[in-house]
C-alpha cells in the first residue's frame, strides 16, 4: 500500500475546547504532517521521519512535550521520550530531563551511541552534555501558563490529566470520571 505517517498531540480533548485553542493546534498538526509527508517522499528512513516530526511537535508550545511541557508538584520540568526501530527492534528512552530542548533526539542517541536502552535523570542529563545536544536553562520550560495550570491542579489537590477540569478533592471520583474542561493539551 505504500508509505504512511500518523501523529498525535495528546488525547482527552474536551468537546468544549474553544476555537481559539483548537485552531492553532490543528494548524500545528497540519504543519507537522506536511513535514512527515515531505520527508517520506524524499525517501528518508521512517526512524529519521518520526524523530524529525516529534522534534517539531516538541518545539510547539501548544502540546505537552518539550517547550510546552507541564510542571511537577514541585514546579519543575521532567521530560521523557522514547523511539523504536521496527526493523532492528533497537530502541532508546530518556526520563527526568529538565534542560534538553529535544528529548526525542537524546533518546535516539541513547539508542545509537550506548549499549543501553534507557537513561534517566542525572545520567541522562550528563549524557546530553557529552553528546552536545542543545540544552537551555530549565526556566525556558517554565511558563506563566504552566505555573497557572499547576496552581489550578494544586487547588484541586489532584493530578491534572490533560484537560481535566481542576475539581475539589473528591476521592470517590476516578480519574476517568472527571469532567473534561477547556484547557490546553497537557496530557501525559
Amino acid at each position, binding site marked *: 500500500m505504500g508509505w504512511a505517517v500518523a501523529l498525535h498531540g495528546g488525547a482527552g480533548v474536551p468537546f468544549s475546547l474553544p476555537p481559539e485553542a483548537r485552531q492553532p493546534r490543528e494548524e500545528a498538526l497540519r504543519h507537522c504532517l506536511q513535514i512527515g509527508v515531505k520527508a517520506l517522499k524524499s525517501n528518508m528512513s521512517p526512524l529519521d521521519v518520526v524523530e524529525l516530526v516529534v522534534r517539531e511537535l516538541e518545539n510547539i508550545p501548544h502540546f505537552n*512535550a518539550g517547550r510546552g511541557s507541564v510542571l511537577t508538584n514541585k514546579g519543575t520540568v521532567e*521530560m521523557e521520550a522514547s523511539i523504536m526501530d521496527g526493523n532492528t527492534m533497537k530502541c532508546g528512552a530518556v526520563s527526568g530531563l529538565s534542560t534538553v530542548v529535544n528529548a526525542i533526539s537524546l533518546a535516539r542517541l541513547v539508542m545509537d551511541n550506548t549499549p543501553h536502552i534507557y537513561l534517566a535523570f542525572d545520567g541522562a542529563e550528563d549524557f546530553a552534555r557529552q553528546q552536545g545536544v542543545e540544552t537551555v536553562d530549565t526556566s525556558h520550560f517554565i511558563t506563566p501558563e504552566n505555573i497557572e495550570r499547576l496552581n489550578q491542579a494544586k487547588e484541586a489537590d489532584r493530578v491534572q490529566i490533560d484537560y481535566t477540569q481542576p475539581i475539589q478533592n473528591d476521592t470517590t471520583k476516578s480519574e476517568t470520571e472527571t469532567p473534561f474542561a477547556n484547557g490546553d493539551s497537557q496530557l501525559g
Partner: protein
Amino acid sequence: TVGCVAVDSNGNLASATSTGGLVNKMVGRIGDTPLIGAGTYANELCAVSATGIGEALIRGTVARDVAAMMEFKGLSLKEAADCVVHERIPKGTVGLVAVSAAGEVAMPYNTPGMFRACATEDGYSEVAIWSD
C-alpha cells in the same frame, strides 16, 4: 504527549513519543512514554505511539499489545488497535496512532478527543480532534 509513527514504501516501520508528563505529578514519576511496550513500540508488523493516563497504559502494555494481537491472533491493524483501546483499557484513558507494514493507519481513542493527523501514499490525509 506527542508522537509519530511512520512506514516507508518498503514496509520499514518506526515509532517515537515525547512528553512533559502530568500536571502536578510527583517528582520522579515515570509515565508510559519512555517505556518500550507501553507508550512506544515498533516491530516488523506495526509501529505504535500511545498517549493518555500513563499508569493505565503501563498496566495494559498498550503499544506492545497492538503488535501482539497482530502477531499472535492474526488481527488487522485496525482490529488490533480497536480491540486494545475499546476493550482492554479503561474508558477515558487512552489514544494511539499506529501504522502497519502494509501502509494501513489506525488512530483510535477512548477519550472525548485526540489531536491527530495522518497521510498515506494513496492520497488520503486527515487532521482531526474529535470524531464525527
